[in-house]
């Protein structure tokens, strides 16, 4: 479905440069929202003691997720090749239903809108939505 144009990639890289200083907060907030707003996602974290917003496991995992996103930004020209290991992880070990990638993407976008209201114009919104969609597709590639 999605092809990232040169313009999309520039917008994503530009916005990422603004965001990256707050990456951990963004990850924590997005995950907190995902767990609170879409309780079905909690099923993947039954091994955590505390699933409440900004708990220690949520913070730690937010950081992990965002370093994955950072990696994806740096490999934006070849997401499937660049994210092979992560893709295999999600397919064979984590086995996350790929529908949840959309849910997390939505919550990342909500956090971007809250933290960068002036910068998160509709053009940035569509570029990020496309990028997160392409990222989700790269992560789902090894599933079947």
């Amino acid at each position, binding site marked *: 479905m999605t092809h990232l144009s040169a313009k999309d990639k520039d917008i994503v890289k530009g916005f990422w440069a603004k965001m990256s200083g707050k990456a951990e907060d963004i990850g924590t907030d997005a995950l907190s929202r995902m767990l609170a707003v879409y309780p079905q996602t909690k099923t993947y974290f039954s091994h955590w003691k505390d699933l409440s*917003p900004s708990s220690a496991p949520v913070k730690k995992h937010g950081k992990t997720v965002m370093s994955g996103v950072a990696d994806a930004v740096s490999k934006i020209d070849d997401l499937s090749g660049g994210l092979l290991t992560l893709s295999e992880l999600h397919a064979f070990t984590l086995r996350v239903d790929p529908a949840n990638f959309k849910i997390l993407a939505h919550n990342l976008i*909500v956090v971007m*809108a*809250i933290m960068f*209201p002036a910068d998160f114009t*509709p053009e940035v*919104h*569509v570029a990020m939505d496309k990028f997160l969609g392409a990222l989700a597709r790269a992560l789902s590639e090894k599933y079947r």
Partner: protein
Amino acid sequence: MVKFTEKERSTIRAIWEKVNIDEVGPDALARVLIVYPWTERYFGTFGDIFTASAVLNNAKVVAHGKVVLKALDEAVKNMDNIKKTYAYLSRLHYEVFHVDPDNFRLLADCITIAIACKVKSALDPQVQATWKKFLSAVVDAMNSQYY
């Protein structure tokens, strides 16, 4: 039927009070058209809505954005009866406008994002969850007359 607790009702009203329909409506609709361009198919009479800048400068998009959010006000005022309140709108979108109902979900997401831009951290995770419950009821009501 969706039931809202007293706390949920006041949360929804509190957020809604912060929403300027004249700003959030147009922003949400512009985002729908820009982020999900297939939705352009429903607005053949709006003129040029084929680029982001055309959408953002289109007076009909602005006007219609306000219409859509005013309708949401009806849902806020009739939280116990959203299905009945929206039965007419649902029928209209099905029989007259032929809108794929998946688009209601997309519009709901864009409304949330437009609100997030405005109210920022007032939309904390708990508030977002409650607001989503409300919008899900609205989306369900909009689907209800599709059969």
